[in-house]
């Protein structure tokens, strides 16, 4: 009988402790958001590791926490329209300018660029290797080579479609043999390409940190048209009054300043600079 | 000596119970009088349980069922008692709380205590009710029934699952309750038990009440028809007699 009493007491104590722990945690649910902003950016940018390098420097300089929600460019811009982000950091110039024209963004400024490359099987069955991205795509289509497209309205996807257009081929509509859309991020697309020895357009940053290369190698690089321009846009408080416009502007100002630009340039993967700052002086 | 007739507690008039297409009780007409100890006997499927349910008022029926005393408390003990996964003590307290929610806690505890002592389970009060033996569980069910001070206690084959000594204990308790003046209605297929305990026997056949007599009359020789056959069939191998 005494045993049962002790047991019961022990169990009640354990339950009480668990509840107390949960209650103590509860305040973090409504986390302190005073000096923080929400930044919508893209998966490829986050996965390159840039933010892990850039944002701590900004926090040091300003005390402001930047919370990155990394989604596809399409969704990031949509977040801007909905007012779910305070600032946008994406790489699709046309779409960005449209957003500003619609009044959802105050202003769009160049901040940095990286470049795309085309990777493919080392044997290069379609003969795509070279410096010309448009010619490479034409050759891949002609040879009915396997090509993986992200197909997710991302900046990378938008760029890819532009290059196909330049080559005079409407790849998705033309149903080019071997062209496959995965509706996925850069990493999964690379995985698929690696598995099936296919060609794929990727940003250099994601490629450099990609571990699962299989038989793939960079085949096309250096074409000026492959440069991928990033823009930073503060969401317009006229449309969404709650936007933390001062804090967001502080970030925009910093990243465009010499300090921010140098921090971007200092980010390297395997001894190589990934992003090239080009804010207007 | 003139005796006042005992008051009627429940009256059935042409009452029937059907489960879907199956007629369980047909046109039952009878009365339960205060102080009765009624044994309802009959073959399996003759409608004993349904008659009990009908009298207890827990089943839909056609015809008339009248309680001639307003809102009395009734209790029922089933063949296999359903006990909650709680201690013996808590099972009793919940039963008391359900039946008479307005009772003060102290009074409730006192009743529970009395009930436990009555059936001899006081020492087991903190054990999980489901860890008791079959006989002990049935005694707990009886305690549960008795504790709420029911006007009528219904029992559906209460000793069918018990070994002989447990059966003896339960029968002793029932005789005790009856002696205290409680009204009992019990279904059983054990004619010896009916003979030992009941003041009145009702024989059911295929849902109908065939015979309704005081015990001595029922067991006198010359019972006609199927009832007689039933008696002979049972008695011929019922050792307790």
């Amino acid at each position, binding site marked *: 009988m005494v045993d049962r009493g002790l*047991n019961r007491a*022990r*169990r009640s104590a*354990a339950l009480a402790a668990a509840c107390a722990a*949960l209650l103590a*945690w509860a305040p973090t*649910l*409504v*986390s302190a*958001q005073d000096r923080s902003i*929400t930044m919508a950016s893209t998966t490829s940018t986050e*996965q*390159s*590791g840039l*933010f*892990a*390098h850039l944002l701590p420097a900004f926090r040091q300089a300003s005390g402001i926490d930047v*919370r990155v*929600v*990394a*989604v596809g460019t399409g969704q990031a811009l949509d977040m801007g*329209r*909905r*007012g*779910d982000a305070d600032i946008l950091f994406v790489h699709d110039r046309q779409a960005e300018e449209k957003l500003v024209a619609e009044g959802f963004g105050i202003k769009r400024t160049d901040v940095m660029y990286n470049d795309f490359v085309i990777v493919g099987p080392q044997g290069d069955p379609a003969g795509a290797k070279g410096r010309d991205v448009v010619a490479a795509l034409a050759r891949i289509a002609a040879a009915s080579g396997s090509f993986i497209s992200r197909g997710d309205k991302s900046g990378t996807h938008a760029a890819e479609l532009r290059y196909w257009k330049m080559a005079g081929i409407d790849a998705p509509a033309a149903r080019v043999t071997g062209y496959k859309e995965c509706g*996925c*991020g850069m*990493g*999964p697309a*690379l*995985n698929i390409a690696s598995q099936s020895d296919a060609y794929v357009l990727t940003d250099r940053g*994601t490629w*450099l*940190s990609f*571990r*699962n*290369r*299989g*038989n793939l190698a960079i085949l096309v690089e250096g074409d000026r048209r492959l440069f991928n321009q990033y823009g930073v846009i503060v969401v317009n408080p006229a449309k*969404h009054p*709650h936007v933390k416009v001062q804090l967001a502007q502080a970030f925009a100002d910093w990243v465009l300043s010499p300090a921010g630009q140098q921090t971007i340039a200092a980010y390297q*993967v*395997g001894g190589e600079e990934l992003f090239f700052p080009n804010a207007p002086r | 000596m003139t005796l006042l007739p005992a008051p009627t507690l429940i009256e059935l008039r042409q009452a029937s119970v059907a489960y879907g297409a199956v007629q369980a009780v047909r046109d039952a007409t009878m009365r339960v009088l205060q102080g009765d100890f009624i044994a309802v006997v009959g073959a399996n499927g003759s409608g004993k349980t349904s008659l009990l349910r009908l009298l207890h008022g*827990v089943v839909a029926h056609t015809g008339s069922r009248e309680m001639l005393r307003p809102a009395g*408390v009734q*209790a*029922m003990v*089933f063949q296999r008692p*359903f006990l*909650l*996964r*709680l201690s013996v003590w808590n099972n009793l307290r*919940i039963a008391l709380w*359900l*039946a008479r929610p307005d009772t003060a806690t102290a009074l409730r505890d006192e009743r529970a205590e009395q009930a436990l002592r009555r059936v001899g389970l006081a020492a087991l009060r903190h054990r*999980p009710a*489901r*860890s008791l033996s079959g006989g002990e569980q049935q005694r707990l069910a009886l305690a*549960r029934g008795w504790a709420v001070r029911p006007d009528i206690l*219904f029992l559906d084959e209460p000793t069918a699952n018990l070994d002989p000594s447990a059966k003896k204990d339960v029968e002793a308790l029932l005789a005790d309750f009856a002696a205290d003046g409680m009204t009992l209605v019990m279904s059983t297929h054990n004619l010896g038990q009916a003979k030992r305990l009941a003041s009145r026997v009702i024989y059911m056949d295929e849902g109908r009440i065939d015979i309704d007599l005081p015990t001595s009359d029922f067991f006198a020789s010359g019972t006609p028809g199927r009832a007689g056959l039933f008696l002979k069939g049972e008695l011929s191998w019922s050792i307790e007699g």
Partner: protein
Amino acid sequence: MVPAPRILPDERLVTSVVPESFSTAFRLIVHADPALVRTVALSLAVSGSACLCAAGLGLASGAWLAVARFPGRRAVLLVLDTLLALPSVVVGLAVYLLLSRSGPLGSWGILFTPAAMVIAQTILVLPIITALARQVVADALRDGGDQLRSMGAGALASALLMLLHERWAVATVMLIAFGRAVAEVGAVMIVGGNIDGVTRVMTTTIALETSKGDLPLALALGLVLLAVVALLNVAIALFRRGAGPLAVELR
């Protein structure tokens, strides 16, 4: 927790990924990297809170559905069973649209916070708890409903007593709900935003590492998650044993 991306030699999937993920998982657990611990704690806290929030409403609704009789009851049960298959992404999307600044509850400002994740997961597990509780109570009433009714219990009182009576089955229901919550990624990804250090949980981390192509790490994190849940189950089993041998036996 996530090391800076490094260049690694190409590797063949099958022969090296699986053993590497086991050793990585072991290392992660042993070193108890603070970022990993925080991520695990957040997973448990979000899913645990969601289950607690859903428990009250879910158990009560399930018990009520087991005894209530009303026109259209069958339709309600059909809808409930259908909701068991609610995809987590769909819940995530719906909650996102609700909590978005452009949505009806935008003024709450809780999108991309753990609170939003708890709300989404609560909605996700509510049908599970309700449907299973209904089954538990209905089955129990089949056994003892007559007795309880005879004792004077009304329909709802009987149902609630049966929840108490079948508390270990209810505990299993809660474990099932917790499993569903802690293992899902669709809802928390969309409403939480997978923000590093704020709303990143185990499953979204695994999704992230997978999309980065770091499959061994992704698998290792999966193993860590499973290990944590296994530990939780052991704790619960010990708790149950403490309640007496009968509690375990008479499940």
